[in-house]
């Protein structure tokens, strides 16, 4: 059953320059994807592609001058863009939980860990502080934090990066979310801790039937932990499908570049995506395919609007020359 359905999402940064002319950075340009319970989706793409922005647009947490200007976000049968801010707020942290990058700077420095766990719970339920505490201790233990009772008293600055990341995951679990959005949940952690945290997330999907969206630079993580993936470039999803299908038979030149750049290192979970080439200018994107300036298959046709095409079973790509790309890649 589809839990999250994002359709044609457009997010712009609208500002004025010194001459008081309106300038628009079109950061998301029609992002669409779906996510079901019990499924892990990997969202990959180079820096600035709009991955975090997608997450914050879904959560309705954009800071000016960013604004969602079009599209729908349907979650569990509700259109999130129509929700009152109170209703949206009660959804955040309870039904949709976020695990963010920079866990250490994301915890309130002046509040003990336990209190932070307790307050996300009491904010979303009628539970007493005592019940919430008991629950917090239990969940801290279940995310692999030793001596959880004592950890409750710890200050954020006393935690290592890995511990802080676990605390964030524990916070996400305080309210039995249906969807967890994990924005680069393991960046900056060492490989063992990384694997532990991702195993933990996968276990949650299996045992509690939550849906998880993992945002990452790391194709290795996608290959190991996700069932489906979406490749993002300049505010669009240019290819999406089952992980096996995309890795075995990539259709978009950008996806191919990403995968080709990393084949032998897919296993060591360390590799960062770098497609090569300069990022496109969001203030002045190409009229057709956004990848046109970096693509070796580009021709005039690519300046016409491109659309998603089915290239395999539940596998789509946004390119006007798919067969040429598939035939011509190796030559």
């Amino acid at each position, binding site marked *: 059953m589809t839990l999250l359905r994002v359709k044609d999402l457009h997010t712009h940064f609208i500002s004025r320059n010194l001459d008081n002319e309106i300038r628009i950075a079109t950061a998301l340009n029609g992002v669409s994807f779906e996510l079901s319970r019990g499924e892990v989706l990997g969202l990959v793409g180079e820096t600035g592609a709009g991955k975090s922005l997608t997450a914050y647009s879904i959560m309705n947490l954009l800071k000016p001058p960013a604004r969602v200007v079009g599209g729908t976000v349907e979650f569990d049968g509700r259109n999130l863009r129509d929700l009152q801010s109170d209703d949206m707020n009660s959804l955040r942290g309870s039904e949709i939980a976020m695990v*963010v990058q920079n866990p250490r700077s994301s915890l309130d*420095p002046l509040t003990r860990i336990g209190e932070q766990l307790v307050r996300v719970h009491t*904010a979303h339920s009628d539970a007493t502080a005592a019940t919430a505490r008991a629950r917090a201790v239990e969940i801290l233990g279940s995310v692999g934090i030793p001596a959880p009772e004592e950890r409750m008293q710890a200050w954020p600055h006393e935690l290592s990066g890995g511990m802080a990341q676990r605390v964030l995951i524990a916070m996400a679990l305080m309210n039995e979310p249906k969807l967890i959005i994990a924005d680069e949940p393991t960046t900056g952690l060492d490989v063992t801790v990384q694997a532990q945290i991702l195993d933990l997330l996968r276990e949650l999907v299996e045992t509690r039937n939550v849906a998880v969206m993992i945002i990452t630079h790391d194709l290795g993580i996608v290959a190991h932990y996700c069932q489906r993936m979406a490749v993002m470039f300049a505010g669009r999803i240019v290819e999406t499908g089952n992980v096996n299908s995309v890795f075995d038979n990539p259709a978009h030149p950008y996806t191919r570049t990403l995968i080709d750049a990393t084949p032998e290192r897919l296993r060591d979970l360390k590799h960062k995506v770098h497609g090569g080439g300069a990022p496109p200018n969001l203030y002045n994107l190409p009229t057709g395919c956004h990848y046109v300036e970096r693509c070796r298959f580009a021709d005039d046709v690519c300046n016409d609007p491109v659309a998603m095409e089915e290239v395999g079973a539940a596998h789509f790509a946004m390119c006007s020359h798919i067969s040429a790309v598939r035939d011509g890649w190796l030559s």
Partner: protein
Amino acid sequence: MTLRTMLLRRLVISVPLLIGILFFTFMLVRLGGQDPVGLLAGPTATAEEIDIVRAELGLDKPLFTQFWIYLGNIVQGDIGKSWISNRSVLLDILERIPITLELLFWGVALGSVIGVPVGLRAAFRHDKWFDQISRGISLLGFSIPTYFLGLVLLFVFFFLLGWSPPGMGRVSLLISPPPTITGSYLIDGLLAGDWSVARSALAQLILPVIAVAIISAAPIVKHTRAIALEVMSSDFVRFARASGLPPKKVSRIVLRNSSTPVATFIGTEITGLIGSVSLIEYVFAWGGAGQYGLNAIIRGDFSAVQGYVLFLAIFSLVVFILVDLLVLVLEPRAAAE
């Protein structure tokens, strides 16, 4: 960081700094072109008489020797004699410190009570009309010269409106001051149960306190706003929102996390305000340490100027230590470091 290491660290930094500052003012005052010997000996003195006065004051010795003697005296608690009042500078300044502190305290307190909420509100209403207006007004506060502000206040509230008593001291000339307990006429008057003294002291206080408040509030508004905005854009506030905490709770997180930097700023601002306070004291004939120092500078009263500088340095040191203590109380992180 424990309290002891913190105090030690402050002192280790401060002593050489203090000696440096003393040396600098010592030289500055002496090379400044004013010759107190001429002033003291009078216009009719002969060259011989002048030499005698100079020797009495120890001003015939080389400068470095003079400085050395001066340092030695300070260590023994003797910071010299004022050539004007002919009294110990230490006594002169000590009895004036409470007078200045009273003005400074109420002024900064009022400035903070106004400035902090305005700054916070401006941050929470970022780029709305309240923000714009408060920014404009605080810019005005920045650009008014202190001395001029004092005069304008007197002109409007004493001369034009007649609401305020003349700016002539800390209590009406017709009332005899209360017995000294704290040095603040207002508090001493209250302690003595003498309402007429307390009322008059309060009336005298209002305008200079408002002047200090205006001068201190402008930077407080600006920095409080900037600090709160920075906290609001921090990762942990965004995460608090992403956790669906109610807006009131999020605001409380912002306030708590802004409090230490705001308090630190106000503390450092106090040490910088002393100069402006001296001018305000001058305009209102306040008679505190600030006015004393200013007078000493104008008249070339070497020992008094140095005593005043020493007072400023020690005052800053004490304020910084108090700010450190406050941070230690407010911040678990600082206590852990």
